[in-house]
C-alpha cells in the first residue's frame, strides 16, 4: 500500500461526511481499515464517523484500535474520551483524557471535554480548573467558556459567570449555547436588572427564531389547526417528566377531562406513575428539532405548553418554529423566554403582579390565586418536634440549589446568624458532593465572620425519603434571592417548617411570595434584607410557635389553593380554552 493512497482515501471520506454523505464515507474507511497496515488515522476517523452515525459500540472499537496503533496523539485520545463519555463509560473517558493531557498539557479540546465530564460527575472544582485551562488555551472556544460559566453558576458565582459570558460573546459572537447560559445566569445574579434580563432573553429569542427559520426553510410539514374537532388538544413538551420538580408540579394538570385530549412529548425519562391519566405519550428523546416539529404538528395540537424555558433539555428552536397555533411556557423557567413564538406564560398575581408585563415578551396569563400545585411527597415522614426544643441550637436551613446561594444570600444568612446568638446554619444541596465546593462556601461564610462550627454543609441524600427526613434537623428555612425556591419552599412547609422569603422584583424572586401567600403565610415575606433577618430571628425566638407550626402547617397546606388539584386543573384548563378560542377568533 502506498503512503499517499490511504491519506487520500481518508481526506475524501471526510469530505463526503462533511457534505452529508455519511454512509459512503464510512464504507470507504471500512474498506481501508480492513487492509493490512492501514494507518491509525483511518481507524480513528472511521470511529468518529460511526459515532456520528449512532453506532457507538463500533465507534469505540475503532477508536480504541487507533489509540493503540498510535499511542500519544492528543487528538485521538481526546476524541476517544469524548465518545466514551457520551457512551456513559466515564472512568474510561477520564483515563483517555489523562492520556491526551499527559502527551500535551496544553491541548485545549481535552481540557474542554474533561471539564464537561467532571461537571457531569459533580466534581465542580476540578471541572472549573480544566475549564479555566481550556479557556486560557482556546479563548475562542465556546464550549470552554460554557463549561467555565456553568461551573461558576453552579457554585453560586453568577455575577462572575455573567462577566465571563459577556466577554466570550463579545469575542466569539452570539450563539444559542453562550446566550442561553448568559440569560440563565442573570436570573441568579443580584446585580442584574429586569431590563438587562429582558434584553438578554430577547436576544436569545432572536437566535432561536433565526435557527427556526433555517429549519422552516429546509422543509417542514404544514401547521394545521384542529378547528373541526370537538375536543381541544393540549400538548406538554418537557424533558422533565421523570423524577424532577417540573414533573411533580405538572402532574395535577395532566388528567384530561371530557372536552380535552392531552398529549405529552417527553424528551427525557418519564416516571412510571406519571403515565396513564388518559394521556397520549410520545417518546421524543434524542429526536432532532425537525422530527419533533413534525410529530407535534401531525397531532394538530391547539395549545402547546413547553415546560423548560431555557433550562437543561429545552427545545426552544423547535418551539420557535411553531408547533401549535398557541404556544405557552410554564413552570420550568423563572423568566420570560424571549421567544417570539411563545404567546403566553402562566403565572399568578403574586409571582407577577400588574406591571410585570413590562419584563416579558409573552402575554402573562394569571392562574390565580396560585400558579403552582404541590403534591404530597411520597414517603415523607410526619413532622417531629423542632430540633431547638430538644436542647439543640436553633438551626436555620436551606436545601436550595447552590447556584441560588449567591453572595447577597450569604450576607443575609450571616446577618441571621449574628441576630440569633448560638444558632446554626445547615445547607444541603447536590453541589456539596464536591468537597472543594463545600470548602469554598465554608470559607465564604468564615470570611464574613461566621464561626465554622456553626455551619453544617450536607451533600445530597441517596433517596427522596432521606431528603425529606433531613428537614427534621431544621427549625426555620431560609429562602434564596434573587432566585427563590419553589419545591424546597413547599417541602419545608410540608415538614412543618416556616420559610422566610424575600420578595424580589421579578418572577424569579417572587415564587416564594406566591407559595406563602397561597397558604396564608404572608407574615414571612420580607421586603428587604433587613426585614428578612428580623423575621428569621423573631421566629427563632418563638419556640412555642415553632412547635405549633410543626403540627399544623401540613393541614394548612392541604386546605389551601396550593394543594387543591381540582381547582388548579380547572383554572389551567379554562385558561387553555380561552387562549384557543381567542386564537380561533384571531386575537391570541
Amino acid at each position, binding site marked *: 500500500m502506498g503512503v499517499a493512497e490511504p491519506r487520500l482515501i481518508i481526506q475524501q471520506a471526510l469530505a463526503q461526511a462533511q457534505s452529508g454523505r455519511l454512509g459512503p464515507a464510512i464504507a470507504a474507511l471500512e474498506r481501508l481499515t480492513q487492509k493490512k497496515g492501514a494507518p491509525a488515522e483511518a481507524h480513528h476517523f472511521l470511529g468518529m464517523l460511526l459515532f456520528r452515525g449512532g453506532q457507538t459500540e463500533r465507534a469505540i472499537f475503532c477508536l480504541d484500535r487507533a489509540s493503540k496503533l498510535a499511542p500519544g496523539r492528543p487528538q485521538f485520545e481526546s476524541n476517544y474520551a469524548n465518545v466514551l463519555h457520551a457512551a456513559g463509560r466515564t472512568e*474510561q473517558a477520564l483515563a483517555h483524557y489523562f492520556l491526551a493531557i499527559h502527551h500535551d498539557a496544553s491541548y485545549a479540546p481535552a481540557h474542554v471535554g474533561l471539564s464537561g465530564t467532571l461537571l457531569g460527575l459533580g466534581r465542580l472544582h476540578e471541572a472549573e480548573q480544566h475549564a479555566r485551562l481550556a479557556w486560557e488555551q482556546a479563548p475562542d472556544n465556546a464550549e470552554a467558556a460554557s463549561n467555565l460559566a456553568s461551573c461558576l453558576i453552579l457554585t453560586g458565582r453568577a455575577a462572575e459567570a455573567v462577566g465571563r459570558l459577556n466577554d466570550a460573546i463579545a469575542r466569539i459572537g452570539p450563539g444559542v449555547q453562550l446566550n442561553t447560559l448568559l440569560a440563565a445566569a442573570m436570573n441568579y445574579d443580584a446585580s442584574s436588572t429586569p431590563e438587562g434580563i429582558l434584553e438578554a432573553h430577547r436576544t436569545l429569542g432572536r437566535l432561536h427564531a433565526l435557527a427556526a427559520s433555517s429549519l422552516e426553510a429546509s422543509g417542514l410539514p404544514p401547521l394545521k389547526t384542529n378547528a373541526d374537532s370537538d375536543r381541544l388538544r393540549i400538548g406538554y413538551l418537557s424533558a422533565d417528566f421523570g423524577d424532577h420538580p417540573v414533573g411533580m408540579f405538572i402532574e395535577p394538570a395532566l388528567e384530561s377531562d371530557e372536552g380535552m385530549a392531552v398529549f405529552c412529548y417527553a424528551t427525557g425519562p418519564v416516571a412510571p406513575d406519571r403515565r396513564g391519566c388518559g394521556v397520549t405519550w410520545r417518546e421524543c428523546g434524542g429526536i432532532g428539532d425537525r422530527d419533533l416539529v413534525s410529530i407535534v404538528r401531525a397531532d394538530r395540537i391547539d395549545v402547546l405548553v413547553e415546560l423548560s424555558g431555557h433550562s437543561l433539555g429545552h427545545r426552544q428552536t423547535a418551539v420557535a418554529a411553531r408547533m401549535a397555533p398557541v404556544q405557552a411556557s410554564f413552570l420550568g423557567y423563572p423568566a420570560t423566554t424571549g421567544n417570539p413564538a411563545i404567546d403566553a406564560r402562566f403565572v399568578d398575581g403574586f409571582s407577577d403582579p400588574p406591571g410585570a408585563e413590562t419584563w416579558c415578551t409573552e402575554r402573562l396569563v394569571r392562574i390565580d390565586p396560585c400558579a403552582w400545585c404541590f403534591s404530597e411527597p411520597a414517603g415523607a415522614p410526619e413532622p417531629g418536634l423542632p430540633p431547638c426544643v430538644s436542647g439543640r441550637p436553633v438551626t436555620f436551613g436551606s436545601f436550595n440549589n447552590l447556584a441560588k446561594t449567591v453572595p447577597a444570600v450569604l450576607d443575609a444568612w450571616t446577618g441571621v446568624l449574628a441576630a440569633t446568638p448560638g444558632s446554626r446554619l445547615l445547607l444541603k444541596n447536590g453541589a456539596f458532593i464536591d*468537597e472543594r465546593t463545600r470548602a469554598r462556601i465554608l470559607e465564604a461564610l468564615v470570611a464574613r465572620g461566621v464561626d465554622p462550627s456553626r455551619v453544617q454543609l450536607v451533600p445530597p441524600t441517596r433517596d427522596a425519603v*432521606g431528603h425529606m427526613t433531613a428537614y427534621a434537623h431544621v427549625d426555620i428555612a431560609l429562602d434564596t434571592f434573587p432566585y427563590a425556591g419553589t419545591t424546597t419552599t413547599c417541602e419545608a412547609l410540608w415538614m412543618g417548617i416556616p420559610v422566610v422569603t424575600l420578595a424580589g422584583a421579578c418572577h424569579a424572586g417572587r415564587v416564594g411570595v406566591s407559595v406563602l401567600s397561597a397558604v396564608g403565610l404572608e407574615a414571612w415575606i420580607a421586603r428587604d434584607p433587613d426585614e428578612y433577618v428580623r423575621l428569621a430571628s423573631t421566629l427563632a425566638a418563638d419556640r412555642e410557635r415553632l412547635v405549633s407550626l410543626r403540627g399544623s402547617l401540613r393541614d394548612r397546606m392541604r386546605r389551601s389553593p396550593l394543594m387543591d388539584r381540582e381547582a388548579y386543573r380547572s383554572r389551567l384548563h379554562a385558561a387553555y380554552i380561552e387562549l384557543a378560542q381567542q386564537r380561533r377568533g384571531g386575537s391570541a
Partner: protein
Amino acid sequence: MRVVWIASYPKSGNTWVRFLLYHYFWGEPANSLEINRRIPDLHRPSGRIETASDRLFVKTHLIRSEALPFLAQTERAIVVTRHPKDVLLSGLNYARLENEAVDASAYARAFIAGGGDPAWSQMGFGTWAGHAASWLGGAPFPVHHATYEALKADPHAGLRAMLGFVGEAIDEAALARAVDLSGFERLREMERREKSRGAESLFRGGRASLSRGAMFMNKGATGQSLAHIDPALDAEFDSAFATPMARFGHGA
C-alpha cells in the same frame, strides 16, 4: 515511555504505596498534591505530570482489560490487594467523609451482595475478586503482588521488593527514610495539617469532615470485624468472600 501501574481496588493502600515510592525517589513533597505530579492518578487528570526518566508510575483502580489505556507502553504492574473486610470498612469511612448519614449496615450488605462497593463496580473497577483476578491472572507483562497486610507488617521489605521489581538498585538510606516519611501517623498529620488550613489535598474529605473526626487516613487497620455493625455480618461476609480471599492470599 514505560508505564508501571500501581493497580489496586479502592481503599487497598494505593495512596500509601504512592507515598512510599515518591518519598524514595523524590524525597519529601511540599504538599500531598505533589504526589499527583510525579505519580499521577489516572482518575484525576491534572495536566502537570513531571517524569525524571522515561518511566512513569500511574495509579489506577480500573480492572485490567483490553480497554486499559497505555497498554502498549505498559512495562509492568505493582498490584496491591487488601483483605476485603478491611476494604469494606475503609470504604464505609470514605463514604462517610462525603456523607456522614451513610447507613453502615446497608453499605456493608450492599458490599457483600455486590462482591464489592456497587458504585465502584459501576465505575469500571469491578468486584474485589474480579479486580484481583484481572491483574493477577494472565497479564501480558510482569506483575508484582503486594498485600496491604504484608506491607504493614514489614514496610521496608515491601518497598524493597517493589523497587527490586522495577529494577532499582536499592539505596538503603533512602529506603529507610521513605518508610519513615510514609508512616501512618506522619501521613495522618499531613492530612490534618492540610485540611485544617483549608488547603487542597490529596486526602479526600475536606475541613468539614475533619471537624467531625473523619479522616481519609482513617485507621490503616487489618484483621477487622464487622460485628460492631451487625453481629451477623461477619458470617455473611466470610461465606461470600472465602473462595476469592483464599485464592488471592487473604486468609479468612
